[in-house]
């Protein structure tokens, strides 16, 4: 197992804030909008340096999505910012008609996704957003795994032409990816090569997969770990190549098992390479109040759950 270390913990939303600021410096057409959550989305640096390119919309997310769609007409590249729940479910039809169907170059940037939003509870903890967004034709869906990757992803989507959903989170987590990485949309990152099982993880679950990989190594299990940061378009080649080698797969995501990354992988494997698969994901449930760590434990999203899923999936191999 390749050794991953970290010297600091940071939130992925701060990676977004840093990436937005840098994208703003690189391209004067980058504009930002927020629905009364500037501090939470870490947009302050962008606003300080480019006040005229920032629009505070107020608590009116539907209007924000429509305005963002309109701002593309004339060449702007709008980044909208609010919590994942208000970025997707609340404004689904606005995204569907004014952004996706209209093929507008809008970047929907969503913080506080998943259980790790914590104490605010289930009203704010969306676990369905990946499913909602990946079903929209033409929508790119990205869920980066740490500060550095989120920053790199933010810069990459500014250069990509078309609608994008960028999902990130609230808690501080280890920073373990290369600060100078080149983020390629739709390209999987090989975290660790192995032969016994393929662990596919996205977002906050990637560090947990690394922790699980270390425990599995102690048990004599050689896990291949792949980071799928882009859930759509899915890097099918990387997944098939890996599962052909290992013969089984565990998918890990901070999302409902219905509609998430796991289902995308299952669809691929069912048609191309039927293989045993286990899902580390929430099980058709809402969340609740608690600390992020407590919630990840209670809802089965820890390294120990990945280890168990790996043992189970290996036992299912023929």
């Amino acid at each position: 197992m390749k050794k991953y270390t970290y010297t600091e913990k940071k939130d992925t939303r701060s990676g977004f804030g840093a990436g937005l600021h840098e994208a703003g410096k690189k391209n004067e057409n980058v504009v930002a909008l927020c629905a009364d959550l500037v501090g939470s989305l870490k947009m302050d640096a962008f606003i300080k340096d480019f006040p005229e390119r920032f629009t505070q919309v107020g608590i009116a997310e539907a209007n924000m999505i429509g305005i963002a769609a309109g701002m593309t007409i004339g060449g702007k590249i709008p980044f909208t910012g609010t919590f994942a729940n208000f970025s997707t479910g609340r404004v689904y039809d606005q995204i569907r008609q004014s952004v996706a169907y209209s093929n507008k170059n809008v970047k929907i940037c969503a913080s506080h996704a998943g259980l790790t939003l914590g104490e605010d509870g289930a009203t704010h903890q969306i676990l369905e957003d990946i499913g909602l967004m990946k079903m929209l034709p033409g929508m790119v869906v990205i869920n980066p795994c740490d500060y550095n990757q989120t920053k790199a992803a933010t810069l990459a989507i500014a250069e990509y032409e078309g609608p994008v959903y960028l999902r990130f989170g609230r808690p501080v987590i280890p920073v373990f990816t290369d600060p100078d990485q080149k983020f390629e949309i739709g390209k999987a990152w090989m975290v660790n090569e192995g032969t016994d099982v393929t662990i596919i993880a996205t977002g906050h679950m990637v560090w947990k997969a690394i922790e699980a990989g270390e425990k599995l190594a102690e048990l004599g299990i050689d896990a291949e770990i792949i980071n799928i940061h882009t859930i759509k378009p899915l890097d099918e080649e990387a997944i098939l190549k890996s599962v052909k080698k290992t013969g089984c797969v565990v998918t890990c995501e901070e999302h409902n098992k219905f509609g998430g990354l796991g289902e995308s992988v299952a669809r691929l494997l069912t048609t191309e390479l039927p293989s045993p698969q286990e899902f580390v994901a929430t099980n058709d449930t809402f969340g609740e109040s608690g600390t992020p760590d407590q919630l990840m434990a209670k809802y089965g999203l820890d390294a120990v759950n990945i280890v168990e899923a790996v043992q189970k999936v290996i036992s299912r191999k023929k």
Partner: protein
Amino acid sequence: MKHTIKELEDIASQIRRDIVRMVHGCQSGHPGGSLGCTDFFTALYFEVLNHKKEFTMDGIGEDLFFLSNGHISPVWYSTLAHAGYFDKSELATFRKLDSRLQGHPTTHEHLPGVRVASGSLGQGMSVAIGAALTKRLNGDNSYVFTLHGDGELQEGQNWEAAMFAPFHKLDHLICTVDYNGQQIDGPTDKVLSLDSLQAKFEAFGWHVINTDGNDMQAIVEGLHYAKTLTGKGKPILNLMSTQMGAGVDYMMGSHKWHGTAPNDEQLAAALAQLPETLGDY
């Protein structure tokens, strides 16, 4: 004036013929609101809108128009064809398989003249605001026009947008409401009363004007007047009274022709009232 009122009325007569023939041709679509807004579309595209012949999505340096109540697509398609955006023969494909003229307008099939999809109601004002913000950032003083149904204003997103535009002093935005008092299930007063739209928009900080949308002279003058009101820190709201079905006697004044196509006999009766002025498609 680029055209005389008589010339504009002739264009409107042809567009009305197109509308009833289009909805008859596919036996679906929305003739009522389309006919009611024909004079507005004619005045806008042939007299008021400063638009370029070659369509570009970005519309830099030209006025933009957004149709929020996308179901009245027949009147927009016919207007766009007569204004030269595409050949009028394409009107015959309306709502048919593989057509660029979808039931509701879309950019998806790359029809020139359309800059955003509409149909699911209440989204157009926000989009227009976004386009106006970009024009301001680009130092482009052109206008942004919209059209909304009155029933459509029951959608909450409109009021988010209505609150936003005056606060941000979007004074190159001219929104028109098709104030015909009808929606699918009946009169707006019976379904969900809009009460005083004038008072509501004024309270939100708009400059509100009232026009007669079925009097060509009045609507041309009203839209020109609206332009003179811009640049003063307030968006303009044009409350435009219309008759649903205007120009076809048996369709007028009722919600029943909101989304119903005429049969052969009804088509003939409608066409008899609408002189062919520019040639049928």
